């Protein structure tokens, strides 16, 4: 029973990490109709940026604050200077843009390898979180608990922003009807770039947060991004709440498979996706009939 609770907590922790990645991906898709295959690159960029900051200042918290800045800048610039102009020229469908970001994913991994080699790095855990916390009669690493809390906090903040603020209202309007929002005098290109940047920054945040417990290496984003795609499809493309629930489902499936059925570990998540695709091709929480 104790072991099960432990796995439950581990699953929750993985879910929150995946959610930080998936939420950006789903926001970008929902608003701009771009499947950002390079999302894993922002995860890597955030982790390496955090690594540099942590090694110069020696503070994990500084890394956590500064790490997402680089992915934000790269993401916003990518959208504003590359993807948006290409989409406007009308030469590229959203599938072409997806393939372009696929190239970016590998270019980033290669560039990081050029700069830092293919060695494995790690950011030191902050001293205040390196202990254990006793919880339900078991001792659990404080840092993993911190990941869970951070993920929940980001989820709550995003929900609040999207549901309760003017920016959120503009965003929701942009998802529903892009032309109408433009007609109301909103600079949609700027909004797109900011949302792209925020999505990338959240992925970068996930990178920094993951750095103390996972190894940091040049291709770290390539593996995790496929799991994120599963979340986004299961949750329904472009569905914010769906991506939260789907993160929980995928994170739990992965953790439980690793703990109790190690022989299916590498494909349990994909099997889940395939079942979802057979039963509900539009995703578990997607609005019916959405044509991507």
């Amino acid at each position, binding site marked *: 029973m104790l072991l099960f609770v432990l796995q439950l907590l581990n699953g929750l922790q993985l879910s929150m990490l995946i959610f930080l990645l998936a939420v950006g991906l789903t926001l970008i898709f929902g608003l701009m109709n771009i499947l950002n295959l390079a999302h894993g690159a922002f995860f890597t960029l955030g982790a390496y940026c955090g690594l540099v900051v942590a090694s110069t200042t020696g503070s994990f918290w500084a890394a956590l604050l500064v790490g997402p800045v680089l992915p934000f800048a790269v993401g916003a610039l990518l959208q504003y200077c590359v993807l948006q102009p290409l989409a406007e020229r009308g030469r590229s469908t959203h*599938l072409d843009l997806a393939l372009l970001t696929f190239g970016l994913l590998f*270019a980033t991994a*290669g560039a990081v390898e050029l700069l830092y080699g293919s060695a494995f790095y790690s950011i030191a855990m902050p001293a205040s979180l390196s202990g254990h916390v006793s919880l339900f009669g078991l001792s659990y690493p404080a840092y993993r608990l911190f990941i869970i809390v951070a993920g929940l906090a980001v989820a709550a903040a995003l929900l609040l922003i999207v549901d309760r603020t003017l920016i959120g209202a503009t965003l929701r309007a942009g998802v529903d009807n892009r032309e109408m929002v433009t007609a109301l005098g909103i600079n949609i290109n700027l909004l797109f770039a900011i949302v792209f940047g925020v999505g990338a920054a959240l992925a970068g945040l996930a990178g920094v947060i993951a750095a103390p417990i996972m190894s940091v290496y040049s291709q770290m984003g390539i593996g995790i991004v496929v799991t994120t795609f599963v979340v986004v*499809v299961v949750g329904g493309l472009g569905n914010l709440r769906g991506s939260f629930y789907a993160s929980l489902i995928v994170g739990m499936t992965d953790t439980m498979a690793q703990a109790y059925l190690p022989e299916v570990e*590498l*494909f349990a998540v994909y099997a889940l*996706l395939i079942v979802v695709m057979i039963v509900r*091709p539009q995703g578990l929480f997607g609005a019916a009939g959405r044509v*991507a």
Partner: protein
Amino acid sequence: MRSEVVCVKDPIPGQLETRPALKVRPFVIATGVAATILALALPFFGATFAITLATEIMISGLFASGINLLVGTTGLVSLGQAMFLGLGGYGIGIGSSLLEAPLWLSIPCSLVAVAIVAAAIGAICTRTRGVEFLLITLAFSQMFYGAAIKLRLTNGSDGMSGIPRPDLSALGLSCDDPAIFYYYVLAVTAITLLVLWRIVESPFGSVLASIRENERRTAAMGYAVGHYKIGAFVLAAMLCAVAGILQSQYTYFINPDSMSWQLSGEGVLMVIVGGANAALGPMIGAAIFILVKQGLSMVTTEYLMFFGIFFMLVVAFFRGGVFGAVRSLIGARP
């Protein structure tokens, strides 16, 4: 993924007669004849390096042709075709090392097995379109990748070695000779491309093209669109499996990396470089890709970064592909 905007509205009747196909044909025949002579004569004046390079190009070209049947002809962008390349290789790997079956038995059996698997996967994947199709094919290929690593049958991440090449000792030839193996690959490639060309030109191929142009209208005309898409998926998978069989024979080896999604991406890149709609495009795309890759490996070890940048540039600026560019240069395009 259309490389050119095709008139969806009703064309003016007279325009149908002067389709570019008529003008292109002499050019295609001329290149075809030149390519055939060049391909047959290569081992007589080429160095071993050139022969192995040409072998690699043909194998990659077959793989790209399989992808092109989905991406270019039917308009379904898949990022998971490497799974069928791997399945083909593992098919004869398991057939020859575990079951000790001869190649004339294990190759057809592998292809039939791939066709059955592809029909099941295709039935699920073709329920979606666009980016969702791309994602679910990717997920399937990752699943097979995971299975290939985990299963004892496939010898995990070490892969299987000792994949046999065809035994031509009855003719007094040895396939271990690069030139002989080159002719073997050339023959398989030529036959496969001929069959593929017949399929694309057949009524079946026309329906696939019309699905790409307007799926709803095709369905409204009474075609069972779903069945045609599954058919295209199965054929594409078998083409990739043929490439996989040749690839594993070429390296005498197969491992899970041949199912990676980077390889699927490389195939899509070859298709885009070659021009998504052209018949010989995938071959030309594969040739350019392999040559660029070889050239890069001489100047830098950072292959991954240049692959990514090359990919981005091609998608952004090179949509008609090289073949499209050449065709517009000689004025064959309307």
